[in-house]
């Protein structure tokens, strides 16, 4: 009935004490910060996006590392995660032409509207 010591290898991975309440409070504070940041009068769109994504990334890191216990996992889990993260970066990088050309076309369109069709 008693837990055999052989199981100890698995169980030590869980024995790290995490203060879940502290992580929760951090997440709530960051949520409030990201809402407040949205009401700031920031003119440039990329700055708004950068601030929002930076805060979201900190929140995501807190959830993944402490709630999902990634900080205490072995190499195998990290190895599994490298694959999708690489694909994510590849996808976003391959979208860069769309993003940049999109802005160029957008400028052309608005210029046409401003000066009127000839």
């Amino acid at each position: 009935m008693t837990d055999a010591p052989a199981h100890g290898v698995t169980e030590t991975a869980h024995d790290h004490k995490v203060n879940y309440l502290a992580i929760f409070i951090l997440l709530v504070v960051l949520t409030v910060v990201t809402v407040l940041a949205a009401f700031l009068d920031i003119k440039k769109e990329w700055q708004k996006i950068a601030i929002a994504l930076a805060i979201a990334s900190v929140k995501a890191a807190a959830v993944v590392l402490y709630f999902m216990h990634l900080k205490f996992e072995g190499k195998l889990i990290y190895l599994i995660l490298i694959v999708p993260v690489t694909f994510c970066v590849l996808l976003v990088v391959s979208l860069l032409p769309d993003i940049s050309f999109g802005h160029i076309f957008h400028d052309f369109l608005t210029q046409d509207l401003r000066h009127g069709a000839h």
Partner: protein
Amino acid sequence: MSSASTYPPDYVPEQHAPDPVLSHGDPTPPGKVGIWLFLASEIMFFIGILGSYIVIRSGWPMLFEQQGKALNKVLAGINTLVLIFSSLTMALAVDAARKGDRKRLITCLAITFACAATFMGIKYVEYTDKFHHYTMVVTVKPAGDEDAKPVSYLYDGHWDRTKNEVKGVRMELDKNVPVDIGFTGKAWIEERMKAEGKLGTGEKLEEKVHPIPKGATIVQATAYGPWKNLFLASYFASTGVHGLHVIGGMIPLAILTIQAIRRKIFPRHTEYVGIYWHFVDLVWIFLFPLLYLI
């Protein structure tokens, strides 16, 4: 002594079966490898949806800035807090399951399940609100004058079909300027009225009840569904699949709660469900600012 009686009554095979991986030197149990592999595919699934969001948004930033204002930030903010709180209770449930604290496990799992249900309830309110929110072009012929030209109005707001009135905003349309109702809305009407000098720069358009006059013709009408424009299409696609993941998480949460009530505790399964549940929270952490705030 029969073979069945060698096991104590509260024996749960899942907790006591030897771990096949352990003897090979890797401390990660196979179930955990499985759930992380599943999440790896989930990450790629959501980045695909996010990729389409990136392309659509970069192609038309003005649309996102304007249409995002129609979403309910307060409800979404509450939903964010609800999901974060459910993540906390889930983490505590995993901890309770590991320690064998059955009462705390049941409480935490039940709260997590209730939070998930609350999230879906708020989502339902948000969605129905969008499906009753209409933009429409209405032409009215002035009464008593046969030769008068009809006047066109653009209505935007909650359409009560029985009373035939719109709670929202209204503006008179210039017939010479073409309007695509898919891309209009309250923010668009405000901008247009400011440009035409009908609204001061600092002023905001007040929402009122605008009845649709008798004999008026509704020329065009569209609800705020995914068909209205590309912003709402990406909004419904991303929040829709996220909502399905929340429902998908509620099923194992319910099973684990029932099993705990039946005095069966599954520490590892609870942990794996927890990892999945935190991932659902993680996706929302990105969706909330991307759709509602910026």
